[in-house]
């Protein structure tokens, strides 16, 4: 069927991007695959309605909602903390340095979504606000707070731009 062909083409074109975003949100490739698949199935069910607009935008909204719902349902499975771990000053910084992926795990699901949308997807504050159903002010504030947390978690040296050789 023509609709199915169009849908398959869309999945082949956009599936990877969606899954990468899902990965940053959940930090697990298997779960990212599940979230992406669930999102695309929902898109398939609404394909005739969304195909005339922007299916990728629709999928991104569904993905975020699916992820946040999943986090709400599974909130007991993940340990959230607002306490930043101590970093002994004398230790070897290279050994103690955590990755961005680890650092994202210390953010709340919503803050993580904001950071991923702003800095992985390169969306504006306004667009992130629309995607998450928040006010631009809230997005701006939470984005700044999340970035400040990341700076501390990742260390000041990581927060600086890479030196130009």
């Amino acid at each position, binding site marked *: 069927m023509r609709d199915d062909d169009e849908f398959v083409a869309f999945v082949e074109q956009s599936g990877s991007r969606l899954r990468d975003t899902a990965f940053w949100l959940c930090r697990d490739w298997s779960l990212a695959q599940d979230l992406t698949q669930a999102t695309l199935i929902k898109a398939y*069910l609404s394909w005739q309605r969304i195909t005339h607009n922007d299916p990728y935008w629709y999928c991104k909204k569904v993905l975020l909602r699916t992820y946040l719902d999943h986090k709400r349902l599974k909130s007991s499975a993940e340990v959230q903390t607002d306490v930043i771990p101590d970093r002994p000053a004398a230790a070897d910084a290279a050994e103690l340095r955590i990755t961005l992926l680890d650092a994202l795990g210390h953010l709340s699901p919503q803050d993580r979504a904001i950071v991923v949308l702003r800095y992985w997807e390169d969306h504006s504050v306004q667009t992130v606000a629309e995607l998450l159903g928040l006010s631009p002010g809230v997005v701006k504030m939470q984005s700044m707070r999340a970035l400040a947390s990341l700076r501390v978690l990742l260390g000041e040296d990581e927060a600086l731009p890479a030196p130009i050789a």
Partner: protein
Amino acid sequence: MDEWVHSMFRNEMSSQARPSLDGMAQEVLAGGRRARRVRAAKIASTVLVAAGLVGGVVVAVPAIAGGHSVVADRGAVAKSASPARPGTQTAPAGGAKTVPAPVILTDTSLPPSHIPQPPGAKAATSSAAILDELLKLLPPGATSNYAFYGGLGAQTYLDGANGLGMIRIVLYQGSLNPDACTTAVPSDMTRTCTTLPSGATVLTTKISDNCIEPLVIDIDHGDGTVVEIDVATCLPWNGHSNPPTQLAITAAQAQQIAANPVWGAEQMDASLVRHANSRFADIPGDSHAAASGGSCPGASGDSRASASRSGKASASRCGRASASESTGAGTSTAG
């Protein structure tokens, strides 16, 4: 000014070993088609209930219950049901978007019993008892990969005369919808109704693009119990694919198992239940007792269709097989 975050995202993603997306489009397509069918059937059952409410005869609330089965209210469709039980009827083929009639009807008044249970002490049916009895009734062969499935149901692999295959059984409280035998079905599905000498109705469903349910036998015992046997042509999702297999039993064998009088959606033989609950205490599954009467509460079309690669999807137990459903917890030889 926050270029460092951008660059960290890019650097870390480039160091990630990203799993292949091969086949995802086809999987999503198959899942989407399945979800569409389930959703359409759900809408149909809702319409039936609404019609029943208008007529003042509705006594139960419908719910999705299994791959092709939809629970609906018996009273809601009684007016349109065929007055006499059919000898053999085949539902006409419809288009891809045809909405099949619900298969299971729930009712507070019990229909006449065609396959009465043997007398004796009874206990609340458990999935363990269903698995135990299924293993006794299967033809000779090695069984393995036991799991509980659906509200009241079980799964096993059978490696017998026909080769390795997966079999699932689910017991529903209710009765078969006579309309399921006559209403048009989607083009990838066939439904045929026959009547056993006892008067019990047998609904045989074949779904060509569903390897978990290519052959489904439902038998209405007539006492509020419908037994469904799913004979698969693949194994559950192993994280990469559904490995293809053979139909481990024939339609006639599945029919024979489903028609056994021992089955009861509410109660089964007490000693069987006791023994089975103890034997299969370690089998994975969330439903050992007859609490939900063989339905899949909370299983929406979407979640059912989103077969989980990681086995983490919460409602996958009632849908297409997932890795978590295939957890083998025992092996024995049947027959």
